[in-house]
Each structure stands twice: as C-alpha cells, then as structure tokens.
C-alpha cells in the first residue's frame, strides 16, 4: 500500500490498487465512532455511447440509464431490498448518480462489517427482470417530475445548454420520461457488465480502521471477475466555443434566479493548481468580502453572496456563478466585467489563501465528507491531499495569468429563470 502523509493537517492516506484493477483509498480517523464507505464506478450520465469490451460492439444507450441502473441495483434475487437491509442494521445507506460517476455508500457507528457484507454483495449481484425494470419506471418518472418543479435545476440545465452544443453534460442525469421508456433489462446488463468492473471502480473508506485489516476484509468479499480490456467511451468532439449567450425560462419564482457561466478551455495546466487559482480568483473578485459584492448588496441587487462552482472532467470544464436578483442582467454584466478587467491584489490574494487553508482543513472533520471528497477527486485523477501541498506554492502571478486566460467575454453565458 502506498502511504501519503500530510504533517500540516496530520492526516495519513493509504492507497492500494488490487490485482483486478480496483483502487482502494483508506483514510483512518482514530477518534471517531462513525465509519463511512463509498464505492463508486466511473459511469455517469455522460457515458451513453461506448464500445462493449467483451463483444467489441458499439453501443448507444438511452439517456438516464446510469441513474436507472443505480435504482435497480438494490433489488436482490431472493427478494431482499438491500437498502432496506442496510437501514435495518442502523446504517444510513444511499446511492447517487452524477455526470461522471455512480456511487453506493453507507455510514454509521455500529454493524459496519454486516453492512460491508451487504454492500459488496448487492453491488456485485445485479438482478434485473422485465417486471422489476418495469416497476421502477413510475418511481423514476416521479423523480423526474420533482426536478421539473425545481427552478434551480432548470437553471443549471439551461446553463449547460448555453455552454455546450453536443456535449452529453447537457442531458438530464435521470433522463426524460420518454428516454427511460426505452430502457430494458438488456440495456442495464450491458452497462453493468461494462462499467461495474473492478478496474473501473474506486472504493473509499474512512473511520477508526487498521488499514491492512480493512483492506483484507474488502479483498475477501470481492468476487473473481474476468479481465476486460479498456472501456472505450465515445464522446462528441471537444468544443472550443459556447453554444448560446443567453437562455431564459419562465417559471413561478418571485425573485429571478440566474447563473453566469464561463467555459474553460484551458488545457495542459495542473488540474489542482488551476482549481485553487480559480477559487482564489472568485473569492477575491466577487466573494463575500469583495467590493463589488458589497456594492451590489447595498444597491439591493443581491441579497446573499453568490455561489461558485468549478465543475470539470476530461470532457468538460466550466465555472458557474449563481445567485438571485431582481435584475440578473445587470449583476451578470458587473461580474463578467470585474472578472475580465480587474487584477487580483496582493492583500486579497493573501486573505483568500488563508481562508482556503481553513476550508480545506475543515473537510477533514467528518468521515463522510472525507470519503466523498476522496472518491470525487479520485474519479478525476486527483488525490485530495494534493490540494494542501499545491496550495502552499501558488503565487499571485500564476493566479492572475489563469484569470486572464479563462475569463473572456466570448466564453461567458447567462441563464435566467423568472416569472
């Protein structure tokens, strides 16, 4: 096992790649009673076109299949619902699907190994029948319906439509009522056999564990699987420009919601370093302590701080800045302007850096946050501890260069939801 240590924040991380290709990350936490495990596969809503390694056949699947598969994993051949079983053990169990991965998880103070038995059993034993696949359609239909009433979700989907022309990140993760009507048990098995192979999966465990011991416990519960070759995912060509400048949707909201988005097409940069630079840029120029936020607050243009997010994988990268305002066009104009035309001052750079250190450190307070963070970073090829190391060596000059290269007028777009 590889051991990575950070003395500043006093954490040790154990990483192992098993013979079957599965990656295991263990983050021991001595003083906590809570234990947490999350098992993810690199299969999300954007993976809808691929070559099946076993047959070499090119396959296109209906939108929303990764999410549908996640729902169906819990059902077992003996009639047991694994979610039910885990909850009966007093474990808080769940699963979720994103653009680029699906994850199964549970946490709790007792019965960890009984939970581990169940988790590793159900994730390795798919059981799909015509009937049980059919039964799920109504439930997922209602889940999609719930998103339809969610203005922030529409706002986000519309922003993706502005930033990308053909990229599958535009798709709703759960698909549409129409697309899920085409999903059959065959679709689910084909995706399972391709993407739920250990070589495509990562497991993160955090809690009061002896790393060697827990590693053995996991190993003995893994079933042998035939080796498969590399999974070839097919994506549309990388896009270098945005699709639409603005998209507006009418919904019943009192104060309009908006997202200002920037496509980031900057390649060949260290991902971690770039990510930190972006956080410093956004915090310094339009964060809570910035002049422009204070001005907009005083003018009544904003009533709470803007939220930022930098989402990226190998297939997409963008920055979204969201908020609520009576005049979203004006707020958009102001933030785009300040991001393009202002330089970051030394004093703001220093303060943002200190704040970031505290933020990174606090992530290590809770085993659940730790597990999720390590999985999500690891899916994108990052080891979370890198943030603490890289952060120390970042300088103002680098940050200002990144700012100049990412924040450009023709790469920005605006999504609005209003009455």
């Amino acid at each position: 096992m590889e051991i990575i240590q950070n003395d500043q924040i006093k954490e040790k991380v154990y990483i192992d790649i098993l013979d079957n290709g599965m990656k295991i990350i263990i983050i021991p936490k001595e003083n906590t009673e809570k234990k947490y495990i999350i098992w993810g596969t690199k299969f999300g809503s954007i993976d809808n076109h691929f070559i099946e390694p076993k047959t070499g056949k090119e396959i296109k699947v209906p939108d929303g299949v990764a999410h549908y598969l996640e729902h169906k994993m819990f059902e077992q051949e003996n009639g047991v619902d694994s979610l039910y079983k885990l909850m009966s053990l007093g474990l808080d169990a769940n699963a979720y699907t994103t653009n680029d991965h699906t994850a199964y998880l549970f946490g709790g103070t007792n019965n960890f190994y009984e939970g581990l038995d169940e988790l590793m059993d159900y994730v390795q034993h798919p059981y799909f029948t015509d009937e049980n696949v059919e039964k799920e359609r109504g439930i997922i239909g209602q889940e999609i319906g719930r998103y339809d009433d969610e203005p922030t979700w529409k706002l986000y989907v519309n922003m993706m439509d502005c930033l990308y022309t053909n990229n599958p990140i535009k798709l709703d993760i759960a698909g549409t009522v129409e697309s899920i009507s085409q999903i059959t048990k065959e679709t689910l098995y084909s995706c399972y056999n391709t993407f739920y192979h250990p070589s495509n999966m990562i497991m993160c465990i955090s809690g009061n564990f002896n790393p060697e011991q827990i590693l053995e416990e996991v190993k003995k519960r893994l079933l042998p699987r035939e080796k498969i070759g590399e999974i070839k995912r097919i994506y549309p060509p990388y896009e270098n420009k945005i699709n639409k400048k603005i998209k507006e949707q009418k919904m019943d909201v009192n104060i309009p919601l908006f997202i200002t988005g920037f496509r980031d097409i900057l390649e060949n940069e260290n991902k971690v370093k770039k990510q930190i630079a972006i956080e410093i840029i956004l915090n310094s120029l339009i964060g809570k302590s910035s002049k422009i936020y204070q001005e907009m607050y005083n003018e009544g243009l904003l009533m709470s701080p803007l939220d930022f997010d930098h989402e990226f994988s190998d297939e997409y990268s963008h920055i979204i800045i969201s908020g609520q305002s009576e005049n979203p066009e004006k707020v958009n104009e102001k933030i785009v302007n300040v991001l393009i035309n202002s330089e970051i001052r030394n004093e703001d750079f220093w303060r943002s850096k200190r704040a970031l250190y505290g933020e990174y450190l606090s992530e290590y307070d809770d085993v659940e946050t730790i597990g999720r963070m390590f999985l999500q970073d690891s899916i994108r090829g990052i080891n979370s501890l890198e943030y603490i190391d890289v952060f120390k060596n970042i300088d103002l000059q680098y940050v200002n260069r990144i700012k100049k290269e990412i924040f450009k007028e023709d790469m920005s777009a605006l999504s609005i939801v209003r009455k």
Partner: protein
Amino acid sequence: MEITKLKTNKFKTNLCALFITVPLLKETVTKNALLVSVLRRGTENLKSQEDISKRLEEMYGAGFNCGVDKIGNYHILKFFLETIDNSYTLEKENILQQGIDLLLEIVFKPLLENGAFKKEYVRQEKDNLIKILQSRQDNKAMYAKERCIEEMFEGEPYSLYKYGELDKIEEINEKSLYEYYKSLINNSKIDLFISGENIDGIELPDIKSSKLQEIKINHVSHSKIKVVKENLDVTQGKLIIGLNTPENDKIATSIYNTILGGGANSKLFQNVREKASLAYSAGSAYIRRQNTILIQTGIEINNYDKTLEIIKKQLQEMKNGNITKEEFVAAKTLIMSSVNLIPESEEDMIAYYFDQRLFDENLTVTEYYNKLKEVTMEQVIDVAKKISVDTIYFLKRED
C-alpha cells in the same frame, strides 16, 4: 449568559453558538427576524459586512452564520461561528478566542448611529426581508409543509412563519428596532455553547441571562379533519398530512414515526413508493416539541385519493398493532444509530444539548440512548392509538 463547554477530540474545528430564546409571538416575530440580519451588518469596530467578511477570512476562513428558528412556542435567534482549532494555525494564533470575541461583538456591540441602528442597514434589511417573505412560494415542497403547519395551528403561536409577517415590516425603524434590541438583550435567556478540543483557556465576559418563562403547547386539535387544497403552478402535487401526537411518550413516538415514515424501511416508503410506485419521496418527520408528525409526499395530482387511502391504511394498521417485530427492531436500530451519531457532529451535539436544556430534560446522549433502548412494542402501539389525523393539505395545479 449560560455557558456550556462540550469538550471533544473528534474535530479539527471549534464551534461556538449563541442562542437568544424568546416567546414566539405575533408582535415580535418579524422584529426578531429583522434584528438578526441587521446585527450581522456591522459592529463598533467592523463597520460593514465587507469588514466582517475580511476579518473572517483572515481568521482562516472562519464561518459565521445566523438565523431564526422556532421550537415549540419559542423563537430562537441563532448565531454561529466556526474556527479551526488553534493547533492547526500556521502561526500559533489563538484563533478560538478571536472567534468568540468576534461572535460576541456582533451580538452585543452593534454599529450605532445617533443612538440607534444605522438607518441605511435597517432599510436594506427591511427590503430583503420583504423579498424573503414574498418568495416563500418559490420552493414548493417547503412551502407546502409550512402551509400545512399554518392551517393546522391556525390562531396558535406555531402557525407563525419564522421570518414574520409582511405587513409588520413597514412600521419598524432603526430607533424602534434598537429599543426592542436593548430590552431583548436585557430580558432574554442567552446561551453560549463552545465545542472542540482546546477550549479550556478561553476568557468570557459576564453577560446577563434571564430565566425563560415556560409556555406549554396547547393545541386545539381539529375534531373533524381539516382539508385544505391550494392551487399553484406545479407539475407534481405535494401532499402533506399533519398528525397530532401525545405530549408524553415522546421517545416511543419517535420510534412510531420511524416505523411510519423514517427512511426506506418505513411503511410509507414501502407502500406508497415501492409497492404502489406512486411517489419518489414518501416519509414523515416528527416535530417533537410541537407534538406533531408531518407526512410528506410528492405525487401525480390525480393520484390524490389513491395515495390518501394508502396512507390512512398505514395509520390504521399501526393502531391495530400490525407492526412486525422486524419493523420495530429496524426502526429502533435506525433511531439508536442516529443518536449515536450526535457526538460525531459539533452542530448536532450543540443542537441536542440546547434542546435538552430548553425543555429541562438534561439527559446526556448516553442516557437518552438507554431510554430509547427500553421502549417496547406495546408502548409504540399504545402511542399509535393516541395519534389522530388533524389536517390534510394538498398543493396542486388548477384543474
């Protein structure tokens, strides 16, 4: 000020929380909401939000948060400040003391102008509060829940919205709000909680805290079920059902609630979602201090009758004692593990002990856990027999 220190070595951070508890009243609920947002605008030394934010960032991005909440017949003004533990600072700073000092400064040394709050701040926060109250309907699920509570407790304190009332904002000004603030600070119960590892050496000023006058819940239940249907632009109908639960046997009621609608094992989840495929979410929440359970589900509008029938059947089943041993054990295990998790979060730990203090129960987490363990199936069925449907609220689209 009543000070409670919760020492724990589980975290890299410290959490400080200050609570001001007052009766939940029509006359003051709006003022409380406004007051909290005016206080966070500036202090004697840090005159603007920008100054406060800069100070927080210098303190390794300490997190400050404030708001209002209602628990039973009380309105709580809450102020939180989270700092990293001193042992992780880069230059050996006493960041916890700085954090507590800042928290106290925000609450007790507000920025004043001509013997009142700063006029501009009060005006801006009034505008913001108006916007908050006007956008209540934006989150449909939340709105439906609050509306059900409003209907169920009509005329009682708990029906008040925690952010107050629109038509009460206009009359408040910087002077009247400051006068109100002074009396509030001098006549309210004030609690300070501090959790973390290195919390022994902190210095705290002497601040007065008054005794809270106890206000018992006195709900007049609807002898005939109250049914309210409201139309809004929604694709999915939101069905909320308010149940009356007994004042005593709160621990057994919490198990009842878990069997009924707490997670994937519950009767609601199994019957409304898994068996009938009527909903994605179906569950219930126990509002312990209000003796209420709220059932919540999102369904297709024309499935209203069908869903209601299934839900009523579950309630009847529980009254008839049709709870399997498996269901009982699963619910008890689930709730016992959630109690075990309380010390794993500083926020939950503080919230737990504050609630215990407020209602004079003073059970430690372990004591509470042990009481939970003793609850029997008979006690839960006994509770089930005392539970009644009070209000049914349905948010739907116009036909």
